[in-house]
């Protein structure tokens, strides 16, 4: 069965510090993985997807099939990065299976 695990419910870092939000998955096929973000009082939106190998707002995520991980990283956190972050695995070609989310708080 496919499963997405985000071990940290809350992550607090200082502004300018590196940040890593962990995501591990279990899936028998080739995974399609995404990071979604929800800022305060805003709707859920796509941050990045592994297939694009892109950097968005300074965030990157590398798919590690050996470790079945898709951790989200940013070298220097900013206060505006404070939000809820969800790792998601697309299964059956369309439905997203989300982790329970990590609340990131960046303090000055």
């Amino acid at each position: 069965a496919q499963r997405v695990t985000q071990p940290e419910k809350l992550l607090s870092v200082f502004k300018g510090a590196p940040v890593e939000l962990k995501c591990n998955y279990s899936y028998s096929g080739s995974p399609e993985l995404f990071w979604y973000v929800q800022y305060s009082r805003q709707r859920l939106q796509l941050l990045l997807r592994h297939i694009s190998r892109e950097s968005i707002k300074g965030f990157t995520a590398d798919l590690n099939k050996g470790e079945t991980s898709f951790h989200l990283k940013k070298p220097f956190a900013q206060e505006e990065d404070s939000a809820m972050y969800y790792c998601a695995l697309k299964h059956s070609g369309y439905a997203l299976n989300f982790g329970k989310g990590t609340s990131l708080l960046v303090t000055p």
Partner: protein
Amino acid sequence: GAGVSQSPSNKVTEKGKDVELRCDPISGHTALYWYRQSLGQGLEFLIYFQGNSAPDKSGLPSDRFSAERTGGSVSTLTIQRTQQEDSAVYLCASSPGTGAFYEQYFGPGTRLTVT
């Protein structure tokens, strides 16, 4: 352009009543999804519509839940005989297609409270 819209934004209902939640997807998007966001359970997939194909209802938690999509556009999620455990934020999303490059665009959600 306009994003995904949902109505109502908030709904308070008594246990045992039926509720209908509405989703207006982005125009031209063929795929439509319903998810539920609840404390402790996170975000759960409920149902998926793609064009005129039969919907994937595999995520619906019980037969009290049903959904339809009329004319390939607007969708309604109906919960019959609501229970307190149905209290959650119900999110609708739409996408132009279903491949890996197609982003799902989410609506603001309907917060359902069952008293």
